[in-house]
């Protein structure tokens, strides 16, 4: 069964068409990559899925439920988490608090319990703290647990960004260029995490990435966007041989 269906999505800002008639299907348990030159509309597409933009035309379905007009917090409550390209962390808080914030919707106690803080609130907080610890363990963030996010290095912040999305316990994880601006070692780390997320946790991954080497190696399916249109799709092998894709990336002779 298809997990996420994007049908005929068009997004225009005035006269500019950021996306035009994009069709995609995301299969459960796979790593689906979206690639394309700068300004091709990759991030716009992710913004449409996660609710920051609403498509001008077309629909997006998640397990047959429409989320075309859902707001970001509704989308994340449905089980679609998003890691941002430009770090959007809560920089004044510790790593721990950043991750605990992602548990927001799972903390089911009332305001009055929170003020009195005994019994229910305390227990649920502790449970979710344990969940967060699990993610910290998984993403190898132990040394930074209590440090302020704003003071951490870029590579670690990127890891925190992915970890925070993971803490939402999503079914689908949208990763927007998780490897941008990193050195080879850090990239290898993130690739390992992405593959672990898919294999160990069974989370569907949608990856937007510029590093073609990484994308070709780990993706199960690739969509190529150019000027807001899908110009090619399929397995990495198929895409690599697609003349349109070669034209978009390398140019015509």
């Amino acid at each position: 069964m298809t997990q996420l269906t994007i049908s005929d999505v068009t997004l225009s800002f005035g006269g500019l068409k950021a996306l035009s008639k994009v069709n995609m299907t995301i299969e459960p348990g796979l790593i689906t990559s979206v690639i394309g030159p700068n300004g091709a509309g990759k991030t716009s597409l992710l913004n449409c899925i996660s609710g920051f933009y609403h498509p001008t035309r077309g629909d997006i379905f998640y397990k047959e439920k429409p989320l075309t007009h859902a707001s970001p917090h509704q989308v994340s409550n449905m089980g679609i988490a998003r890691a941002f390209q430009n770090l959007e962390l809560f920089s004044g808080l510790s790593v721990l608090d950043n991750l605990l914030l992602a548990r927001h919707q799972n903390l089911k106690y009332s305001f009055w319990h929170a003020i009195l803080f005994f019994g229910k609130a305390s227990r649920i907080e502790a449970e979710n703290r344990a969940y967060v610890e699990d993610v910290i363990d998984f993403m190898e963030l132990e040394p930074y647990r209590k440090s302020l996010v704003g003071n951490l290095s870029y590579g670690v912040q990127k890891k925190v960004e992915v970890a925070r999305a993971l803490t939402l316990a999503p079914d689908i994880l949208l990763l927007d260029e998780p490897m941008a601006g990193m050195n080879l070692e850090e990239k290898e780390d993130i690739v390992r995490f992405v593959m672990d997320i898919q294999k160990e946790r069974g989370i569907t991954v949608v990856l937007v990435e510029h590093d073609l080497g990484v994308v070709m190696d780990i993706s199960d399916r690739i969509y190529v966007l150019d000027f807001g249109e899908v110009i090619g799709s399929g397995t990495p092998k198929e895409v690599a041989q697609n003349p349109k894709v070669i034209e978009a990336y390398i140019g015509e002779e």
Partner: protein
Amino acid sequence: MSTNQWLATGNFNTAYQQEQRNFLTHLDRSIFSIFLILLYVWIPLMDLSNKYMLVVDNILIAIVAVMGLNLVTGFAGLISIGHAAFVGIGAYTVASFCQVIGDRHIIITHFWPVMIVISGFVGAAFGAVVGLPALRLKHLYLAIATLSFQMIFQWVINFMSFFNQGQTIFVGRVFWFTGKVGRKDHYMFWYFVILTIVVILGFGIRNLLKTKYGRCLVAVRDNDRAADAMGMNPGLTKVYAFALAGFFAGVAGALHAYVYRGVGFESFTLHESVGYLAMAIVGGLGTLNGSFWGPTALKYLDLQVEHLSEVAGQYLPSTMNLSTAMKPFTFGLVIVLFLMFEPRGIANWWRIAKSYTKLWPFRY
């Protein structure tokens, strides 16, 4: 393994619930308890005159108000320059009851705790309504929206005959179990009441900040886009922040009405709003203990400036009123100095002092 529960060093948490404690060591808890007992004991021992008791009561009322302002401006990052108007809403809730049922009605004099809570909730309701522009507006524009609420409040009070057109509306003397609280014990009585309220509300905030209802405020301040993506409704959170601030302001307003035994509009002007904001900044935005430092420091400064100008005034021509000139001057100077040299406020000094003692007796 037996560990020394009095020091932070060498103790490790073995359960997540241990992390949630308010006091990490016995020492912390003891120091706090002793400090609290001293607060309750020193006033009867000192036997201050009514003038100084009023200053002390004023500080405590300002602490309640600034705790609310700190939640909305410090933690949620929404600048509110209409906070005195919310305090006014609380005070005028009591005043309205006085107008309708008479200022010596049993509800006013005997059920004053109920009145205080009602005023808090009325303040919260107004806070939520005024917070609605926060759904669309940000930063400076939101500040202007709260400013306009301040203006609307002042005009409504000044022009409605129901509110005596801003002239004083009297509030009757309250009763305690021992009978009517007379003129001599009035300020002392309210000192204990307000102190108790401050302690309750302080622990309330402390608990709130450990839970999602506190964290979501900080999330909205730091990055409301990300907060949205993490499953929080940023709009709702902002309205909730304003409602919370309104509640504290409402309680502070009701206390103000009872302590002064009257409500007049001049205590809730824009000038007072800026004053609350200054207290929050001097104390330290986004910290709980800052809400205690700020009002204490600024009100104390006010008192000292008054003393100084009294002394200096003897050497100056009597036509010059030094006190009225000195007060705004020092007030402005202190704020500018704090913004320049310690934008994180007195709470930062407290933090530094605490981090020195944390590892004691070891250096690192």
